[in-house]
């Protein structure tokens, strides 16, 4: 006989029945935990994994994300272009992105592509309302992925007690050597402590779902 059973056996007969009534009555006086979801937007934590956003300008078509993707849901096509730089001995070559698709019907939201991107071209966005009637529509092309960039929250504030970022120390050192003050944004674009209501998807996306 466990401790709990023994204490119940020694209690007054019917005390268990009263306890059951007390639990339900107490629950009734508390606020319910139901989220009125379609009417009230959920308070998502800023690092929620809703959808992956693409910042096209940062992409160099290094293909790391596509190769690291565990279920191969990133499709990339590109071509090379010659860029004539005035003053340079010969024209430079540049990768131009033709196609960058993520198939969200396959994606398992592991975030490896975002971790592995060396040039910060991929971001998590907490936006999650992109259900479709046709599974084919879950393949987001680079324009669609670029639209999600507007919903990406700013990065978290730097820990005031942490080491400064490498870029900052390098810039400060360079500035000290040349004698001019370092150019630093006075108010970095960082995430506030409590995020306001998440930006909602634009109307045309909502109606296409």
């Amino acid at each position, binding site marked *: 006989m466990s401790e709990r059973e023994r204490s119940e056996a020694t209690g007054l007969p019917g005390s268990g*029945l009263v306890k*059951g*009534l007390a*639990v*339900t*009555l107490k*629950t*009734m006086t*508390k606020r*319910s*935990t*139901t989220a*009125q979801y379609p009417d009230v937007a959920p308070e998502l934590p800023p690092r929620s994994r809703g959808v992956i956003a693409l910042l096209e300008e940062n992409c160099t078509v290094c293909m790391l994300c596509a190769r690291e993707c565990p279920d191969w849901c990133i499709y990339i096509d590109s071509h090379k272009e010659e860029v004539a730089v005035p003053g340079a001995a010969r024209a430079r070559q540049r990768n131009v992105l033709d196609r960058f698709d993520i198939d969200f019907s396959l994606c398992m939201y592991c975030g490896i592509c975002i971790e592995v991107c060396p040039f910060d071209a991929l971001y998590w966005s907490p936006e999650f309302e992109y259900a479709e009637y046709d599974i084919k529509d879950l393949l987001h092309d680079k324009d669609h992925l670029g639209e999600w960039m507007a919903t990406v929250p700013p990065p978290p504030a730097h820990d005031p007690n942490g080491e400064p970022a490498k870029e900052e120390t390098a810039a400060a050192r360079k500035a000290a050597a040349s004698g001019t003050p370092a150019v630093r944004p006075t108010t970095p674009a960082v995430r506030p402590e409590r995020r306001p209501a998440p930006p909602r998807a634009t109307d045309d996306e909502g109606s296409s779902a």
Partner: protein
Amino acid sequence: MPLWLELVIRIGGVLAAFLVLPLLVGQAEHKVMAHMQGRLGPMYAGGFHGWAQLIADGVKFVQKEDVTPRAADRPVFRLAPAVALVPYLLVLLVIPLGPNDLVGQPLDIGLFFVLAVVGVGVLAVLMSAWASANKYSLLGGLRGAAQLLGYELPLVLAAASVAMAAGTLSLSGIVEAWQPWWLLWQAPAMVIFFVAGLAEIRRPPFDMPVADSELVFGYLTEYTGLRFAFLLLAEYVGIVVIAALTTVLFLGGWQGPFADEQLGWLWTLLKVAAVSFVIIWLRVSYPRLRADQLQRLCWLVLVPAALAQLVLTAAIRLTL
């Protein structure tokens, strides 16, 4: 006032109570049960906190096809919902709302009539169960019959105790004779009557006959559309009837803290609402009783306790 006008007013009033009170109880059950489980319950129908949910349900039931299974005993199958509803309507007719004949039909043997008519409920269960030609329905119906026949006894014995104390079978007479200290003296009878009444209307924790996790929906399995709605309505009228009977017999009916003459109806309705809340509360709190636990509670606890209460009542009546 001419007789026919008085009749129309009385019957209209009872009919209104018959149609409105169960809806109020049903809506209260939706909301109370939801909040006791940390939910919100219906929120959309009607705009404000889902107040029109049961009306929407009713409209839905009317639209549904009324299916009678091919193997069913058609006339019996179709008659059963009416047999379930009409007894409760008749009971509401004799339950006093306030003093000075504020009652559908004052009856000198009101208590006797009420207990007899409530007992007809078992017939509706058996009719729907047998006529459905469905093994789950039949199992539910037989469970219901065993349960209802068993619990009829403590129900009648507990009611007999209060009738003996008041020295009358008239429901109005019992309320007039009632005094606050009866709450103490008749408390065991009240508990027995209430529990047996719960079993009588097959409410959880005594919902063995409809046990939806084992018997699909018991004797209601084959019913659809309006007939199903009527059987459900019968359950909620049953709550009102049991709450009203408990109020009238044991809680002093229209006797309130003040102004019994003018506000008697209000005290009665408030007490009925409170008892209905307890019925909903019990449903949320307790799991269903097993068949053997059900019969054990009836024959080994309620019936002896009811007999002891009868002896106590008789003794006190003789000494007073």
